[in-house]
């Protein structure tokens, strides 16, 4: 899922300092699961902003709504009436949701309340880690199910580099060396010979370097 985290509240408050009424829009998708922009977080943020403004002697009006998914245009129109008289929309979705909101409400200023971080999963409650680099051409079958594109700090395809020691990456003793993990897994699978194959340079045109990507499934298109 997409992992996002809230921007500092004071930063969001500063962005809307001139507004009298704002709408906060949560999302019931990934950001609910990672506890950043679900219904609960949306209500808490709205009340926190109101309190800040109350203290400043410049009360703020808020309305809140949580869309089933902000990354799906069909869930946006139900907000058409609500956004009409607000000065700004604060989206607690990932960057995709913020853009769908801005696209539909062309005359509204849409503010991101979250920093969209990465694609990953949870380890323990309250901790999420990055697992997929969205490179557009999965190679996990070659690397024992461990992604070197995103988990190696240099995205090396023929690792590990000379900075790997005691199982850790040179950048930090808190970061596992992805290639040590790959080595261990391939060894356990009896497939170390696979690591002797020189992996050729990657086709980054399948990643973001080819420009914004599009995935098409003609078989499920309607009409």
């Amino acid at each position, binding site marked *: 899922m997409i992992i996002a985290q809230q921007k500092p509240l004071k930063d969001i408050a500063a962005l809307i300092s001139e507004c009298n009424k704002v709408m906060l829009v949560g999302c019931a998708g990934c950001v609910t699961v990672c506890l950043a922009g679900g219904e609960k977080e949306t209500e808490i943020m709205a009340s926190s902003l109101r309190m800040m403004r109350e203290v400043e002697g410049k009360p703020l009006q808020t309305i809140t709504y949580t869309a089933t998914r902000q990354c799906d245009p069909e869930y946006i129109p139900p907000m058409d009436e609500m956004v009409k008289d607000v000065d700004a929309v604060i989206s607690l979705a990932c960057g995709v949701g913020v853009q769908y909101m801005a696209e539909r409400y062309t005359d509204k200023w849409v503010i991101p309340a979250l920093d969209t971080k990465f694609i990953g999963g949870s380890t323990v409650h309250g901790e999420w880690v990055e697992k997929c680099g969205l490179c557009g051409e999965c190679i996990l079958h070659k690397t024992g199910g461990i992604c070197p594109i995103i988990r190696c700090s240099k995205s090396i395809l023929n690792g590990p580099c000379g900075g790997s020691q005691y199982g850790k990456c040179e950048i930090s003793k808190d970061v596992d060396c992805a290639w040590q993990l790959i080595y261990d897994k391939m060894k356990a699978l009896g497939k170390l010979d696979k690591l002797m194959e020189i992996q050729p*340079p990657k086709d980054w045109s399948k990643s973001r370097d080819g420009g914004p990507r599009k995935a098409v499934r003609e078989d499920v298109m309607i009409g």
Partner: protein
Amino acid sequence: MKYLSKLHKILDSGQFAVTAEIGPPKHASVEGVKHHAHMMKDYVDATNITDCQTAIVRISSIATGVHVLGAGIEPIVQMTCRDRNRIAMQADILGAYCLGMRNMLCLSGDHQKFGNHPTSKNVYDVDSMQLIQALRRMRDDKVFFSGEEIKECEPRFFIGAVANPFADPFEYRIDRLEKKVEAGAQFIQTQCIFDMERFERFMEKVRERGIDQRVHILAGLTPLKSWRGAKYMQSNVSGMIVPDSIVERLKSAEDPKKEGVDLCIEQIKYVREKIKGVHGVHVMAIAWEEIVPEIVERSGLYPRPQVDPSELE
């Protein structure tokens, strides 16, 4: 046979090679570089020119290489994969060759986190293995990385790579070395050796697989100036092993600098005389280039062999 470079000729003719290292400065004057080059000129066969080592901005390795070459030393241009994509790399490969560079050392490069621009973006469009292979294909197959033909004057480098026997997983370090040789590496410089026992184990496995017959391995050695320097490397540099005994030896020395030089000379003699398969030494006198002539001379490696330019391509 014509050789690709002086270093190539010295190594291929079975002579024990000596390389050193010159770190370009963090400003636009090459006076210091020229001074170091002049000083080392007769004592080394070639010098590495580092490529923004530890991710700190410095004069580019190729630009510095031009001055080193002018001062009479054959440069070994270091090229990391951190800062350039394959287009920029090839442009620089062609550029370095047309400026007279003949040796290139391919490395991953230190992560930018360690340098003076930790908020920069790293590139790693290709990794060091792929760079070695592509550099070989440019020379032997006359093709760019993409496979497109190089119609004339292909860059013909003597290709180097690095190996770190002190990084993990230990067993895979031998595999990875072999992989680099398969990719096209002709000479290898190792990470600074302080843990001689581990290096010997590494070389034993290298010999078992005959890798030393297929590539020239130069043992990387660094003279230490102080026990604090040793301690710093021991605790802060990933991929480095500095035994406590070395820290202690410098700590108890009356003149730590002299002790550091003595130790380095002992190590050079040891790898040369006792470890089979080592074809040379790479003396990395970090920020201490002045000491290289003394180390080379006292190690019994002076004078250096002469190479007739007519033997080179």
